């Protein structure tokens, strides 16, 4: 506190306060000037207004006097110039009015013949100027100031002539106006304090002066500036130092003209005019002074409490901190405002410094420990560390040198890398060129080189080098060599086996791919992509959209949805769909895909194998078509629809025939049979019969039309039928075994018809097995050469067999043992086999069940050739 001086914060605060006060001071001055000007104008205006008011009063008074004098001039006593009577009237008049000092009447010669107060000796006005002017103008005249010609009071004489009937001037009246009374009258106009009223006549003589009339009246003042101005300007205002040396504001005006002119001046003292102004100025400055004093005091106290003392505390703390005491704190509780924040941050800074100091101590400690540790590491590390200078001379080397290359560190120190011969000749050049780069300030990481050990063995080392700077200059290179011989060997064997698998995958006909599990962009694909899609491996890997684009437009939506679903659920699966190859050909592919998960369970790859299944599909398609064709025919032949259609076709002509026959019979039984009608009946019967025959022929040719005779291998037909019936056989859980003679001769036959026969036999056999347990449902199909010219086919079941009657009748039309059967299957089979020139029959097996046989003649050419 003692150290505070005005150059400090306090003085600056004071200056700040003053900086606020000075403009206020200036403002007050300015306003005062403005007010003064207004007050001055107001005072000048007031003065002139007063002057004009006084002039009005004066004029009024003169008018009254003129009336009195006119009245006197009309009185007969004055015409008669009766001295005693006139004096008496004057005396009465004087008694009644106070304003006059006296009255007189004179003859035109100037001789006074009556007066009041009475004159003691003869008086003549003849040489007086006003009298001369009355004689001259024969009108009312105001005389100059005179003292005591009538009475002894300051007086102004007013003259008026009296004329007789012939307009001859007979008498001149004189009225002496008491100036003191006039002044009192004029002062009916109230003047402000200290104001003066001056009336002067045309030659500058003071007629009236208020106050101090006695002192100034009668003085001629024409040499004064005021008087001169008034005499010339007649009406106006001015500010001047007055006759009494007092500064005043004047207003003046003039009544009358010429020699009779009267000038009225009113002066208001400047002191009076500016009284309010002065008072207000004093009050304002006093207030300003007080406020300034208070403000300075407030600033002083505020600065002391809120600024100086916290700053001092901060200052003290800083001094302590500078002295090395890091524990010092300001501890300001209210940490608001800049000073609060300053204190807070000071504390933080001190805290940080303290912490850093502690950390530094710990770090130094740790550094020492580390140094110890690193030294231990350096000595025990398996990697070899060494440094060398610009000349490639070894500066230091770790003890691991011995383990890695079989040298002692002492052998190396000071020797050049080139002479040491530890790096194979092929790699040495590269090491040196790398080293020059390191000397240029670069780091070289993990370059693998071949090293030579002391006993001549080869080792692989991974070399990393870094520059060692001193004073911004590279002075040495530090290198670390890691023995990677084992890894190198492993890599090589891996590469070999990888190459093996690669060769394998590349040689596959199926497409193998790996792809990004999010975008499906291929990351690997084997060469098969060329065969299946027509794109090269490079093209496929470059354009990830090819896979999607190649999907057949009709399949695209379904396939993409399928993949999308599998992707969401991470489900492995198989997708079969069509693609359009690059050359526009459509292929069917089957994609067996799987999601590969990484060690942490995340899907890392989308892998799959695509096979071209086009041929497979086409075969399937062909089979399906064949089956449909057969079943269509089979359905027509076996199911009632065909029978119904045939029945209707034949029924119609039969009905007509019967109707006609019955009609004919009726006609013939009548008394007069119409033979023509009977003949017509018979003709119709013939026609209808032919029609029926036609229907049957048509039916035969329809059955024939389906199939033409060809050279056939019966084994193939059996295999086809088993393929067609695969589903039915599986559904019925029947085990079918075929023993097909491999060198069975070909036969001539209709393939579909023979298929039909076999289907009937197999399905009948299956039906016969349905009552058995599934494991006992067995069926054997055999083919063999029977007689020299025919083959035999046997369909054997393990069912219940047929009874005696069934064996005989089973091939008859409409004979059936099955509830839902129509009984045409076997009869049609029989007719088919018969048409082929073969036989069909059934026998019961000894071991149970029945066997159906049929024979077919061997094809002529084949029979001959075999």
């Amino acid at each position, binding site marked *: 506190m003692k150290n505070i001086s005005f150059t400090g914060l306090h003085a600056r605060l004071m200056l700040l306060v003053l900086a606020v006060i000075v403009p206020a001071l200036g403002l007050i001055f300015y306003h005062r000037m403005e007010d003064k000007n207004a007050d001055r104008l107001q005072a000048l205006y007031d003065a002139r207004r007063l002057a004009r008011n006084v002039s009005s009063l004066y004029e009024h008074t003169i008018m009254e006097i003129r009336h009195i004098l006119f009245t006197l001039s009309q009185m007969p006593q004055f015409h008669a110039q009766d001295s005693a009577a006139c004096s008496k009237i004057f005396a009465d008049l004087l008694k009644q009015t106070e304003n006059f000092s006296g009255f007189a009447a004179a003859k035109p010669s100037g001789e006074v013949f009556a007066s009041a107060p009475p004159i003691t000796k003869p008086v003549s006005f003849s040489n007086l100027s006003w009298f001369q002017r009355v004689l001259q103008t024969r009108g009312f005249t105001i005389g100059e100031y005179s003292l005591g010609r009538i009475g002894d009071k300051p007086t102004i004489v007013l003259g008026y002539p009296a004329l007789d009937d012939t307009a001859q001037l007979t008498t001149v009246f004189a009225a002496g106006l008491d100036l003191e009374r006039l002044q009192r009258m004029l002062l009916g106009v109230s003047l402000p304090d200290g104001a003066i009223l001056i009336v002067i006549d045309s030659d500058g003589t003071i007629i009236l002066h208020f106050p101090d009339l006695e002192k100034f009246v009668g003085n001629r003042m024409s040499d004064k500036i005021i008087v001169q101005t008034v005499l010339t300007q007649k009406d106006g205002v001015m500010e001047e130092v007055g006759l009494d040396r007092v500064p005043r504001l004047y207003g003046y005006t003039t009544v009358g003209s010429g020699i009779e002119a009267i000038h009225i001046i009113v002066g208001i003292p400047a002191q009076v005019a500016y009284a309010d102004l002065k008072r207000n100025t004093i009050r304002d400055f006093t207030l300003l002074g007080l406020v300034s004093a208070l403000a300075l005091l407030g600033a002083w106290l505020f600065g002391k409490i809120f600024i100086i003392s916290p700053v001092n505390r901060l200052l003290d703390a800083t001094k302590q901190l500078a002295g090395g005491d890091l524990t010092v704190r300001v501890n300001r509780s209210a940490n608001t405002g800049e000073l609060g924040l300053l204190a807070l941050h000071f504390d933080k800074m001190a805290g940080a410094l303290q912490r850093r100091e502690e950390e530094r101590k710990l770090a130094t400690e740790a550094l020492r420990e580390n140094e110890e540790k690193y030294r231990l590491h350096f000595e025990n590390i398996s990697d070899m560390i060494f440094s060398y200078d610009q000349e490639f001379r070894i500066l230091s080397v770790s003890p691991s040198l011995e383990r890695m290359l079989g040298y002692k560190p002492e052998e190396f120190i000071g020797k050049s890398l080139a002479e040491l011969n530890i790096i194979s000749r092929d790699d040495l050049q590269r090491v040196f060129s790398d080293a020059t780069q390191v000397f240029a300030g670069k780091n070289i990481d993990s370059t693998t080189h071949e090293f030579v050990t002391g006993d001549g063995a080869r080792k692989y080392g991974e070399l990393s080098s870094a520059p060692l700077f001193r004073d911004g200059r590279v002075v040495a290179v530090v290198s670390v060599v890691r023995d990677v011989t084992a890894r190198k060997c492993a890599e090589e064997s891996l590469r070999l086996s990888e190459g093996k698998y690669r060769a394998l995958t590349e040689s596959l006909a199926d497409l193998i791919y790996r792809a990004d599990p999010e975008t499906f962009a291929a990351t690997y694909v084997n060469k098969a992509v060329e065969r299946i899609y027509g794109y090269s491996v490079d093209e496929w890997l470059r354009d990830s959209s090819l896979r999607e684009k190649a999907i057949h437009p009709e399949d695209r939506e379904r396939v993409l949805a399928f993949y999308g679903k599998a992707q969401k659920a991470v489900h492995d699966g198989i997708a079969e769909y069509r693609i359009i190859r690059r050359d526009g050909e459509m292929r069917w592919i089957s994609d067996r895909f799987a999601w590969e998960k990484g060690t942490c369970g995340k899907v890392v790859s989308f892998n799959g194998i695509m096979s071209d299944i086009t041929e497979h599909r086409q075969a399937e398609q062909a089979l399906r078509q064949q089956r449909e064709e057969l079943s269509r025919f089979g359905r027509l032949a076996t199911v009632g629809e065909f029978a*119904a259609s045939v*029945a*209707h076709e034949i*029924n*119609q*002509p*039969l*009905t*007509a*025939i*019967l*109707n*006609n026959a*019955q*009609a004919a*019979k*009726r*006609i013939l039984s*009548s008394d007069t049979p119409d033979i023509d*009608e009977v003949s*017509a*009946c018979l003709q*119709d019967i013939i*026609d*209808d019969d032919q*029609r029926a025959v036609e229907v049957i022929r048509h039916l035969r040719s329809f059955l024939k039309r389906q199939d033409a005779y060809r050279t056939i291998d019966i084994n193939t037909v059996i295999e086809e039928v088993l393929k067609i019936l695969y589903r039915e056989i599986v559904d019925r859980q029947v085990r079918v075994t075929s023993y097909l003679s491999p060198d069975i001769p070909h036969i001539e036959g209709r393939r579909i018809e023979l298929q039909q026969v076999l289907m009937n036999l197999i399905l009948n056999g299956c039906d016969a097995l349905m009552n058995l347990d599934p494991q006992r449902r067995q069926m054997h199909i055999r083919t063999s050469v029977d007689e020299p010219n025919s083959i035999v086919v046997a369909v054997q079941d393990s069912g219940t067999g047929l009874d005696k009657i069934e064996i005989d009748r089973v091939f008859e039309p409409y004979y059936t043992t099955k509830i839902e059967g129509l009984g045409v299957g076997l009869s049609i089979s029989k007719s088919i086999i018969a048409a082929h020139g073969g036989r069909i029959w059934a026998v019961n097996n000894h071991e149970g069940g029945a066997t159906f046989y049929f024979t077919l003649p061997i094809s002529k050419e084949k029979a001959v050739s075999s």
Partner: protein
Amino acid sequence: MNPRSVVYVIDDDVSVRKSLERLIRSAELSVQTFSSAHDFLSRTLPDYPGCLVLDVKMPGVTGLELQEKLTEAHRFIPIIFITGFGNIPASVQAMKAGAVDFLEKPFDDKTLLDAIHRAINRDIQHRQKNTELAALRRRSESLTNREREVFELVVTGMLNKQIAFQLGITEKTIKVHRARIMQKMAVQSFADLVRLAERLK
């Protein structure tokens, strides 16, 4: 047998149609044949009693559909259906809709001709009933309003006295009305009158 009766045969098969025509004609019945239902419907038929021999299965409008159409048009004509093979649901439907017979082709001549006679008789009866009813209607329409009022009350079994009271006329007037009604409706007894009223309903 009414000589003025017609058998209409509809069958799409020309030989069946022809043989049927011949058979029916041999039984001394007049026959008209049509090859389709449409053909039959487009022809104006004479106002004679008759019947229809109709094949069930025909291209275009089938026999059953024709039966439906005739019913919808309020054309009453007995129908004998003939069919190639017995179809139970179809025959049930046909019989329900008022067919006289349902014959399976081929059929015995007697079976067909008996069926035809039965059908024609039925048509004749139906026509007679219709004619009588028409006459009856005409007669009942010849009654005056007052007579009709009396008629309607009489047949309910009310006594003359009651009727007179209800209508506000004398019993004697009622008696006069009753006599007039009996005369106009051409009945001899009160019982006949009640029966007539039943039929008119």
